[in-house]
């Protein structure tokens, strides 16, 4: 009996091993090849419009490139372009720091704002489609020149609210480095909020997919709206928060309102000796690294933090363990006490039964 069981186990193992080495069937293989066929346009596109420019751009960044009638004339300068940008260029570093602070400040505002609006639109209210229409409108018209025109003419902020009072109050409290971006944010409140159209829609469709019965169950258990938000809504739309944050960062980084992008373009066509294609390419690489770092930072922040629900579960488990330990302790003590009493009774120290039961 024991022997046959072992045999089958060995056989199973061998079968598994053989399956591992088994090649996939002809049909599957052909399927895979067809997949490549469908992907051909993408492979060509990546090679021509992504990999080749990326490599060339890196090469450009290490060179000083001059446009001559004979064509491009390049001389290798190593990290010369980079050090020129970081040390000598008066604008780039300043603009880059500005860009980083304003992005890090405005992305959470945009995403939280989008979430709040999406939650309100998800309630049982009248005129839902009308409000949706309004809040999605900016997606259609947000573009660099239009935003530029609107801010220029003072339509980017509300004149009815005295922004000067707010900004002066802020700069009174905070150090200049933080106060400037924040007051900038207030001055361009509308344009900042206008960036959140797509995000609202993404959150809204995520919210609608949450099972209603979860809220009902929570309500029966006595959960308040506040608790429901932290323990049901937020954990459910967590992947969408990351999606929206990445989308927002990329969007802000690529609007033509962004001064760094303008800087890259002007230095690309600049006629001075040390500027030109190579210089602009080096700038673009620095900018790319910063953008990727910002995306990575947000991704890290949002991915490592455990959801409120998981935290709660962990805490509950811990409490349960503690309780079990306590119960065991009490049981052990009871047993010990009972033994002692037994012993004492045997020795004849306690005679009456009532004394041993006085704790009842």
């Amino acid at each position, binding site marked *: 009996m024991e022997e046959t069981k072992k045999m089958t186990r060995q056989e199973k193992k061998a079968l598994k091993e053989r399956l591992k080495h088994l090649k996939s069937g002809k049909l599957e293989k052909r399927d895979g090849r067809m*997949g490549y066929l469908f992907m051909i346009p993408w492979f060509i596109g990546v090679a021509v419009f992504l990999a080749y*420019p990326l490599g060339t751009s890196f090469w450009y960044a290490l060179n000083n490139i001059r446009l001559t009638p004979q064509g491009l004339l390049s001389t290798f300068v190593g990290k010369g372009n980079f050090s020129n940008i970081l040390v000598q260029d008066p604008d780039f570093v300043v603009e880059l720091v500005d860009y980083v602070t304003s992005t890090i400040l405005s992305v959470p505002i945009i995403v939280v704002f989008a979430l709040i609006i999406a939650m309100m639109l998800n309630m049982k209210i009248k005129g839902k489609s009308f409000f949706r229409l*309004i809040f999605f409108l900016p997606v259609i018209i947000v573009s660099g020149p239009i935003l530029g025109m609107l801010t220029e003419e003072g339509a980017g902020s509300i004149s009815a609210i005295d922004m000067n009072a707010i900004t002066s109050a802020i700069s009174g409290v905070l150090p200049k480095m933080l106060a400037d971006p924040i007051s900038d944010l207030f001055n361009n409140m509308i344009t900042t909020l206008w960036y959140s159209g797509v995000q609202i829609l993404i959150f809204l469709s995520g919210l609608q997919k949450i099972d209603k019965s979860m809220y009902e169950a929570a309500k029966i258990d006595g959960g308040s709206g506040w608790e429901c938000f932290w323990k049901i809504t937020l954990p459910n739309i967590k992947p969408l928060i990351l999606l929206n944050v990445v989308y927002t960062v990329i969007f802000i980084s690529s609007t033509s309102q962004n001064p760094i992008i303008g800087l890259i373009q002007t230095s690309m066509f600049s006629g001075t000796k040390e500027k030109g294609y190579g210089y602009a390419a080096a700038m*673009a690489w620095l900018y790319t690294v910063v953008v990727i770092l910002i995306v990575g930072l947000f991704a890290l922040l949002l991915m490592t933090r455990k959801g409120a629900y998981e935290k709660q579960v962990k805490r509950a488990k811990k409490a349960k363990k503690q309780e079990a330990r306590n119960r065991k302790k009490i049981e052990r003590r009871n047993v010990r006490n009972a033994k002692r009493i037994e012993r004492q009774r045997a020795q004849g120290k306690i005679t009456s039964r009532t004394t041993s039961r006085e704790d009842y």
Partner: protein
Amino acid sequence: MGTKDKEGFLKLFMVYALLICIGFIYLYPILHMVSVSFMTLDDLLDSSIKWIPSSFNLANYKQAAASMDFWSSLGQSILLAGIPTICNLISCSIIGYGLARFNFPGKSICMGVIILSYVLPSQVTMIPTYVLYSNLGILNTIWAFILPAMFGQGINAPIFILIFWQFFRQIPKVLNEAAKIDGAGYFESFYKVSLPSAKPAFITVALFSFVWYWNEAYLTSLYVHGFTGEGMTSLVIQLQNFATNYNSYASTAVSGAASLNESINMAGTMLSILPLLLLYFVLQKQFVESIDRAGITGE
């Protein structure tokens, strides 16, 4: 639970108040733009007039339209947004289908590259691409937009590929298998079975692609419009160069136009978004429900 959940009156009131307030803030620039664009110079200077102009004045629009060369720019805008959109639809649907239906070695690498190419700012590849286009002789022509779009590298193409990928994954594979049993080849089962059921994804991608190409100012001015403006133009580009365009238009004695002021600026801005606004109000349902139906949020 049979009973209808009732929200508190105060809460509901707060929600409506907030929504209306924020909605107003949202619409404020547009309302401001519409109101200012109708004002005459006297209305602008009159401090008692805030919102409603004293007369319905269309002169600003006429002058702005003339300086922007409105109809020709509109036509070019439609071409510049429409043709790459069609290319995007074709290429991204094919690529998305390839990713969703087939298991081939290196698929996860492909997904990684797609996401990376989305995160990468276009500035980093811009300069060599510019040189490449000028070597190919397609700089300052519409081909500078069509060619990348044909190979799945257009503006925001990674998003569109992911939308199609997500959508084709949701269509049951059994349908394709049934088609195969009935004797359909790979391409037949793609365009006869999968494509017709992917209509919502097509609508979403078409709308967003059109809007994003329409609003793209930076790349258009670099690749298509040209540094000195010899290529095609679009309404957004015209708006970007509005001041210089208008001044050169106003300086010619024939036009008899007033010098540039706020009203004319706003009229020009209004003209450049008007086509998209009309599109939005006609297709509002498609726009608002697009993300829902494309299943971006489905895991």
